[in-house]
């Protein structure tokens, strides 16, 4: 019995270490390529340790494309999207969860129904709207909509507001607090974990967004990293060292944010799984 337990423990650890190793290997491979001098990149069998390691590919990235500008655009877009979502979504979620007003249930059902719709349906008319507004080749189509909310985030936050006890609100009412005050001073502080999750989702979504910039943006002045990296790849498809260096620089902030906010990442994902 004990031997059997030992063996199964060994198998479990063996599988986890093997699996973990294969999951980390692509990262090691990428880092190794990014720091390799050109003549070592195409060696077969490959050398894992660059000899000597070089940062030339990281410099090349900035020479081949205006990488600093792309980076700046992405950061601006991300901040604007987060600001927009945090402005529009918690308020609407609060109204759906806590306030009583005519039309609430209908509007909520419509909100839920639109979540079923694939974004491709609205993509073309949205493009035509932004085109008519003269917003093509600017960053505007990539952040303005966030200030008008997003069904998924509103739904998620509403589920959290629903779990807060109504007695708190009632007590605050008796003390003469306004409904907005209840939202701002009592409800909002209690759902900070959910707000953090929504912020993380928005950050990831904006950093990741490719089809949006692909449709709306042509020139570097309004281009984020995702599309910039694609342009880079199109122009320098054989420069694997520089391509890996650029990819690493795009990935790095996401990984840093992940390590700092790991708890909230995991919480957010599992909460969507359970509440959604």
């Amino acid at each position, binding site marked *: 019995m004990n031997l059997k337990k030992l063996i199964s423990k060994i198998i479990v650890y063996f599988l986890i270490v093997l699996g973990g190793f294969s999951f980390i290997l692509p990262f090691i491979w990428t880092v190794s390529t990014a720091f390799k001098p050109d003549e070592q990149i195409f060696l*077969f069998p490959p050398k894992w340790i660059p000899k000597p390691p070089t940062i030339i590919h990281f410099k090349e990235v900035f020479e081949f494309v205006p990488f600093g500008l792309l980076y700046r655009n992405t950061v601006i877009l991300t901040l604007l999207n987060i600001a927009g979502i945090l402005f529009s979504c918690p308020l*609407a979620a609060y109204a759906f969860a806590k306030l009583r007003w005519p039309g609430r249930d209908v509007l909520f059902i*419509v909100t839920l129904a639109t979540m079923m719709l694939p974004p491709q349906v609205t993509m073309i008319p949205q493009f035509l709207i932004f085109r008519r507004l003269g917003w093509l080749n600017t960053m505007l189509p990539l952040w303005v909509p966030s200030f*008008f909310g997003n069904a998924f985030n509103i739904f998620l936050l509403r589920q959290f507001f629903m779990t807060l006890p109504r007695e708190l609100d009632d007590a605050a009412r008796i003390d003469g607090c306004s409904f907005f005050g209840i939202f701002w001073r009592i409800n909002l502080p209690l759902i900070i974990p959910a707000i953090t999750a929504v912020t993380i989702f928005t950050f990831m979504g904006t950093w990741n967004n490719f089809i949006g910039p692909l449709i709306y943006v042509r020139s570097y002045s309004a281009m984020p990293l995702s599309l910039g990296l694609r342009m880079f790849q199109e122009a320098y498809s054989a420069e*694997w060292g520089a391509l890996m260096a650029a990819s690493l620089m795009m990935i790095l902030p996401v990984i840093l944010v992940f390590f700092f906010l790991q708890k909230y990442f995991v919480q957010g994902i599992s909460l969507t799984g359970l509440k959604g």
Partner: protein
Amino acid sequence: MGKFKKNKEEIITAYLCVLPWSLGLSIFIIGPIIASLIFSFMDYSVVLPPKFIGLANYKKMFFGDPLLWKSLYNTLYMTVIGVPLNIILSLSVALLLNQKVKGEAFFRTIFYLPSVVPQVAMSLLWMWILNPQVGLVNYILSLFGIKGPMWLASEQWAKPAFIIMGLWGIGGNMVIFLAGLQNIPQHLYDAATVDGANIWQRFKYVTLPMLSPTIFFVLVMGIIGTLQIFTQAYIMTAGGPMDATLFYVYHLFNKAFRDFHMGYASAMAWFLFIIIFAATMLNLKLAPKWVYYEAE
């Protein structure tokens, strides 16, 4: 709802709170839905004014565009093979990590990390990893004496290559499964053990039924997501070779933003909606056969 004392302040606050979203919903969602439906009956190339053409777009879709069916086949291939593999792998990893292993947090991080990598960067990484001559995958295969395929350059192996790459990103589902597993009360396992259930029986009669709602959620979301696959193909293969990785949304994108057939692309978007809707309904219909919901 029903009868409640109408409170003016409450109603005004509520309307102010939902004002941005009501505008967003009308301008960016409801309006475009209606417009898209109308466009789907029109010939619209953006530069010329739209022209009503009845059901011609839909007719062309079903009878005059073999590429559409090819792209649909490619997409369904990814869904039917990729989604179950993804669920099996993410559930297996979650089960392993749930065995009270030392360093669970560390390994969880390692398995989760790839799923935060932005898609464009992930595509570039995997183009290099899958490089037939000097890539990581074929190098490892060569260690076992296997000559790896051409992957992205091969009509036969391009889709499997995308599926393998997708498996690198199981982290999100793994975390969802871990949360689900940790919600299963220990006393159920204890009771099963007392009744003499072995590890496989405990998995089959306790874990699987208790986890089935989570599996259902992951399955439905996985199918919806895979039916919309686009970015990887756009960057890694441009739909090739021989349209082997031309997926439905890619074809739609080409029609709309390469050929400027906005009406036709709108019709395609509605067909996609119907496919997604049908798949979801089918899942809901089949759910009672295997999804176990605890009696409240």
